[in-house]
């Protein structure tokens, strides 16, 4: 059956009726939030101390930690370095599926290396890692398991390529936050795998640190409220910090709402550290930081969040090279302001549906040649793949 458009039309009408009022409410909240930001712009010490107290009461707290720069400051676009090695990596995957005739998963990582300031043809790399099984000694191959493997392999490949880079500075990029996501499972196997993956991930980051690379994670269209949360902490009386989870006086306001009016084209915001449950794992030079960056134009601003480790945040030269290179890469894409190298890394990594089918056939053929019995595609999956579906 197709969508019930008659009913949906009424639902859209009803739900949209409250949208203008909600928009006015949010606009007022945004104005309030910007005012609070302005009032606290030079209170970095006060805010840091309060965040520290709140984190002691709730280790799951996730917010921004002001550093030395004024909160509402805007830093102009530096000059692009005359030469640099820019390396971007992205990962894709084929998730294990019990509906297929054979259970396997694939992590495919693509990377591209460009020499800024030269006319050399960029080098491209693809690394495909296949696992054929339903589980290993570490546990069942879940989607979380595969995602962790992918994130880890992206960073490992970057470290490997950075080791061979010949031109400084070295700038490495991945799409998404720098912080490895996970570690919240109650399942012992999953938790153990996360710890192991995190350690490997941190080793890769440490390698990049030793090489002096400016490494960063790029978050397009961020919806986070890290700085907003810090402002909520600022508003919360000392005695009520223990109830912080229930205190969201600025809920609905995002960091983008705060910084979009502040940042001109090419400008970056102040630097912040990240307070999160796992932040202590990223210690010393690996400590997680971020800034917001306007990669759009004066008439069409576009904010992104750039996450970086302390060794880059505290090095003006590396920070400026990273800042300038990101804006330059976004300009290559014209109106679609997204770093060219990250887009190319994605192109190299992505696995098409046809490639997935081909890989499945290859695995089945090899197993059958070796006399290994294989399963059957589930009837549910087979029915989905019936050709010529034009009506529902």
């Amino acid at each position: 059956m197709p969508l019930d458009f008659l009913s949906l039309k009424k639902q859209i009408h009803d739900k949209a009726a409250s949208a203008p009022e909600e928009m006015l409410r949010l606009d007022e909240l945004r104005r309030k939030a910007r005012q609070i930001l302005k009032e606290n712009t030079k209170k970095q010490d006060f805010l840091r101390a309060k965040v520290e107290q709140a984190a002691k009461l709730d280790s799951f707290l996730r917010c921004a930690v002001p550093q030395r720069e004024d909160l509402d400051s805007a830093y102009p676009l530096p000059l692009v370095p005359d030469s640099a090695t820019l390396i971007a990596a992205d990962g894709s995957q084929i998730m294990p599926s019990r509906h297929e005739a054979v259970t396997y998963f694939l992590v495919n990582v693509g990377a591209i290396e460009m020499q800024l300031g030269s006319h050399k043809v960029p080098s491209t790399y693809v690394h495909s890692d296949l696992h054929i099984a339903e589980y290993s000694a570490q546990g069942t191959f879940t989607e979380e398991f595969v995602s962790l493997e992918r994130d880890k392999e992206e960073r490992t490949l970057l470290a490997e390529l950075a080791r061979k880079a010949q031109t400084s500075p070295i700038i490495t990029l991945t799409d998404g936050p720098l912080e490895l996501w996970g570690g919240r499972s109650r399942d012992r196997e999953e938790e153990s795998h996360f710890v192991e993956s995190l350690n490997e991930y941190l080793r890769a980051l440490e390698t990049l640190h030793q090489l002096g690379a400016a490494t960063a994670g790029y978050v397009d269209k961020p919806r986070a409220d890290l700085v907003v949360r810090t402002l909520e902490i600022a508003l919360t009386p000392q005695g009520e910090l223990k109830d912080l989870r229930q205190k969201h006086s600025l809920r609905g306001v995002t960091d983008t709402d705060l910084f979009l009016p502040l940042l001109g084209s090419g400008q970056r915001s102040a630097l912040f550290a990240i307070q999160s449950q796992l932040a202590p794992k990223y210690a010393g030079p690996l400590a997680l930081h971020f800034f917001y960056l306007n990669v759009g134009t004066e008439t069409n601003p576009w904010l992104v969040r750039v996450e970086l480790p302390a060794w880059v945040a505290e090095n003006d030269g590396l920070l400026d090279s990273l800042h300038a290179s990101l804006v330059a890469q976004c300009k290559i894409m014209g109106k679609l302001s997204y770093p060219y190298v990250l887009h190319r890394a994605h192109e190299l990594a992505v696995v098409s549906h046809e490639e997935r089918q081909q890989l499945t056939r290859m695995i089945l053929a090899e197993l059958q040649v070796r006399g290994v019995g294989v399963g059957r595609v589930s009837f549910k999956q087979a029915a989905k793949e019936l050709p010529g579906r034009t009506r529902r």
Partner: protein
Amino acid sequence: MEEQTYQIGRLLRSGITGFVAGTKVLVQEAPRFGALVRAPLGENNSIYGLIYEINIEDDGLVRQLVTTDSVDPSVIADNRENRNVPMEMSVLAVGYRSSEIIHHLLPPRAPLSLDLIWRCSDEEVAAFTNAGRFGYLRHLLRNPDLPVSELIAAHVQQAQAANRALGNLDWGQRAAEELIALLRDDYTTLMQVLGALADALPEMSLSNE
């Protein structure tokens, strides 16, 4: 200078009357409109064809890049060398070779996907174009969808150069005379072909007497 044979791409799709080959976009050794090429047809046999269309497919990224004020040379190089955006060459089948004999007929079979496509050397061009009495030209003339006059002119220009390199100095004149004979009942097309030939080969005297 004598042209050698070289590989120009791989077959994407094919039929009896022609095939499409794909190749990376390279400035050097780019295949030419009107060039004679060959594809394998079983062991030691070949299908011959003329390139009548060359397409470079665009894609979303390239379309985005061209909207900017300038494109970094390394980005251009990346798109030409690394990205799988092939140049597609459409080839009209004009004959085949079987057991060392050249036939100006449609081939008995189509070449297979991913077969290598080769640009013919001067020797091969001379051998093909001198086999029989220009019978292969009718494959060009009967196809209304082709840019007939330009294709003939481009082919004759290249084939004449190949024949001259091997000492066949009168090949171009003989080809023109055969075209005049084939098109004597189609004055419009004849004039277009002769006009194109005159542009391509100004040194040749062309007459429809």
